[in-house]
């Protein structure tokens, strides 16, 4: 069994126009107080047996060297050799000193927010790095022994047409990363794009882009193991697999979520409440039906799909016979397929997963 620990750092040196995560402009005084609150929240859980630690944001790399040191002191008790330890970084505020610090603290995976290589697209999204810096940073990471690197790419951004996307993918490949995540632009409330009434790509465009991304990355040695995630060899994200395998994780920090002991909870997004010790905003106690719901919803995101043996043992029901009425027509329509070990969404239909889920779950 795996178990995760997620820690959220909401601070950013600038706010991206599409981002709807818990985020705050970098402010040194707040960071100090935030780290103290973070420590208190973490200590309120009896965190044990974690196999993965993920520090995300926001922008963890926006913290100063000293602040990063404090952060590593907070997580020190949980670190051990062999732990999967990922930290999210932005190109523009990562320095050699910070990278060296990370490496010394067992960070063995870095996730880079790249999103696009086009100057025009980046400026419109309020992002500030240059193509040359990306290569420089990757070389530095490798210099300090961090080889497992993910690059995030967004598609469907303003001015990022099909030609730009193709170019972005080509450059992404040339970086020779272990992992690539690609996300379709969603325009959400509380973002600048939402206020500017930026339009999401049409379903047709989105599908055209997605199909191209899948075939291009697979041609270049990356395997799609989840709707939006691609990995070389065995470099799948151990941390995200915990989510998709419906396994437990602690969520610490502003807006973070956790799943521990049949409870799913989400933390407040209000910095004031958080600093005053009001961490959890809402929580949901799961009964067995809820657990099954999540298990199906999450595992079917994976290429491997739902492991029948594991499922049947965990819930003491036979999946195929219980869901026969829903499964048979879906199989007949070619939307899903299964053998003795797994049930999965057919390769070409992962992009209508929610439609398939609704037909199974309701």
């Amino acid at each position, binding site marked *: 069994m795996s178990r995760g620990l997620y820690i959220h750092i909401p601070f950013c040196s600038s706010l991206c126009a599409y981002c709807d995560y818990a985020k705050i402009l970098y402010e040194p005084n707040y960071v100090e107080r935030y780290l103290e609150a973070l420590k208190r929240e973490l200590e309120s859980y009896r965190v044990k047996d974690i196999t993965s630690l993920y520090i995300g944001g926001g922008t963890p790399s926006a913290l100063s060297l000293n602040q990063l040191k404090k952060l590593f002191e907070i997580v020190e008790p949980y670190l051990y050799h062999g732990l999967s330890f990922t930290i999210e970084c932005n190109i523009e505020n990562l320095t050699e000193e910070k990278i060296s610090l990370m490496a010394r603290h067992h960070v063995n995976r870095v996730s880079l927010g790249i999103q696009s290589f086009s100057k025009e697209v980046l400026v419109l999204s309020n992002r500030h790095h240059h193509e040359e810096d990306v290569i420089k940073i990757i070389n530095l990471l490798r210099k300090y022994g961090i080889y497992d690197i993910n690059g995030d790419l967004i598609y469907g951004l303003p001015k990022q047409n099909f030609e730009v996307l193709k170019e972005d993918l080509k450059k992404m490949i040339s970086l020779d990363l272990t992992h690539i995540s690609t996300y379709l632009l969603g325009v959400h409330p509380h973002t600048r794009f939402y206020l500017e009434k930026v339009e999401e790509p049409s379903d*047709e465009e*989105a599908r055209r882009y997605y199909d191209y991304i899948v075939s291009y990355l697979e041609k270049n040695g990356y395997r799609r193991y989840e*709707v939006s995630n691609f990995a070389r060899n065995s470099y799948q994200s151990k941390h995200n697999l915990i989510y998709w395998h419906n396994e437990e994780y602690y969520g610490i920090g502003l807006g973070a979520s956790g799943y521990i002991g049949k409870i799913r909870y989400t933390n407040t997004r209000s910095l004031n409440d958080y600093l005053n010790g009001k961490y959890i905003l809402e929580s949901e106690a799961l009964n067995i039906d809820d657990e099954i719901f999540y298990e199906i919803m999450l595992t079917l995101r994976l290429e491997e799909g739902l492991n029948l043996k594991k499922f049947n043992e965990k819930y003491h029901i036979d999946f195929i016979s219980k869901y026969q009425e829903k499964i048979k027509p879906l199989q007949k329509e070619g*939307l899903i397929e299964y053998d003795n070990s797994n049930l999965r969404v057919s390769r070409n239909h992962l992009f*209508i997963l*929610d*439609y398939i*889920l609704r037909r199974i779950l309701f």
Partner: protein
Amino acid sequence: MEYDLKHIRNFSIIAHIDHGKSTLADRLLELTGTVSKREMKEQLLDSMDLERERGITIKLNAVSLNYHAKNNEDYLFNLIDTPGHVDFTYEVSRSLAACEGALLVVDATQGVEAQTLANVYLAIENDLEVIPIINKVDLPSADVERTKHEIEDNIGLPFDERLQVSAKTGYQVENVLEAIVEYVPCPKGKKENPLQALIFDSFYDSYRGVVAQIVIKEGFLEVGDTIVFMANGEEYLVTELGIRTPKDVKVDRLEVGEVGYVAAQIKEIDKVRPGDTITCVKRKASTPLAGYRKMNPMVYCGLYPCDSNKYQDLKEALMKLSLNDASLHFEPETSSALGFGFRCGFLGLLHMDVIEERLEREYGIDLILTAPSVIYHVYLNDGSMINLDNPSKLPDLSLIKEIQEPFVEAKIMTPKDYIGPIMKLAQEKRGLYIDMEYLDSTRVVLTYQLPLSEIIYNFFDKLKSYTKGYASFDYRLSEYKTSRLVKLDIMLNGNVIDALSSIVYRDFAYQRGRVLVEKLKNIIPRQQFEVPVQAAISNKVIARSDIKAMRKDVLAKCYGGDISRKKKLLEKQKEGKKRMKSIGTVEVPQEAFMAILSVEDEE
């Protein structure tokens, strides 16, 4: 308290929607101390949630009031509420039959409206004393003089100057109470005579069985009497009598002139018909009272449960609703697209709407309704005639000699500035101009003959928008006439969907077909495969549009924080699918079946 006949007054209130009928009723209840101010909820008589929300009265309702008049004598008032909408004329005639008088409430800022006029004439036909009241005189835009002139000159009723009131503020409302004493005749009839009680409403109560609201026209009725329903001869033992104040108050006896309710452990809801006369075994009357004009449904539609397991529930709910709504007709039908359901007849679209909402709210049944249709007379070559209430059942054209459709005579009352737009509207709707009459220097009544089918297709909304809400209209069925009509079929994936067929005027068919397929394309969500939507007349396709295949339906990002949110999202999406019906492999939402009604907006 016991009252002799001379101190009983049975009356109803007639008013157009929004002219303040319910507010006036509330004020009367308050002034007579029937309901204390503290207990007052807005619009007490409108007891259904639906009525309060829409601000209209749908069901009639009765309440008893005690009034100590200026002559120092005590009176019993029975107020029987009436609905104001044209669809519910039937209900109005029921309440009028129970009364000797009616208050006519006219809004001083609006004047007399066409529907009000229709109800006033109904009251006069029923020999009721009509007392005009001018309401809302406190508003700056009130024009009391003009309203008075309309009442006296156009309707021909004398107006008592004291009856200029504001129901909202209570100004001069006590004069209304005095006017009821003075003008409304007391009930005729004698206590010694054999019992004749008119049933004007009824409802079902799971403890008491059917409860009938009655007015005693002759004789008296006591708990323990054996009553007889004169229409079917069924006998029951009276277990409870009472009056409504508006709470139910049990009494041992109801006497001539009184209004109240009777319960007799009647479990079969179809035994009690409003309009029937109750008598009793001991003091049996030889003849029933004159019932009232039964209204025939004007529009029909198919009603299907979204969940086919709810068919039996739907049947029981319809039976319960029809108990106090004799105008609601229903019979089983099957549709190849929608399965088992009922073809239901309604007095009009509002009536249909109200029944649909009551079925969903009070009985928890999600429904699919097909577009409403009128009844066509289809004459076949062999000389026989079919009453067609379901367009999909139209026989093959080669068998048909001609099709006739119902026409109504519509009276549209409007300020003269809007004559032009109304004439244009009537023309678009295939109207035949009959007459125009000036009521005074600014207002006219236009009379048109119009096909009923065109009126149910958003005529009223258009009339309101063409005239900034100033025009009002009323209609009655005039005759059946031959029209050039065709059946417009809709095909999904190449299959004719019977529930989407409609009968349309031939000259409009191509245009409607084109707009309809476009509309359906937008309403029906994307399916897994491309689905062609076609409109056809006699198997000939006249328009086509394609619903594109589903291309994307996934949340691309699903990390820690998104997980609970994603479950909620899926659940929300499911809610949206509740009122969908799978037809073959295509999921069709409820709005699709109503699309034809709003087709013209986009022509």
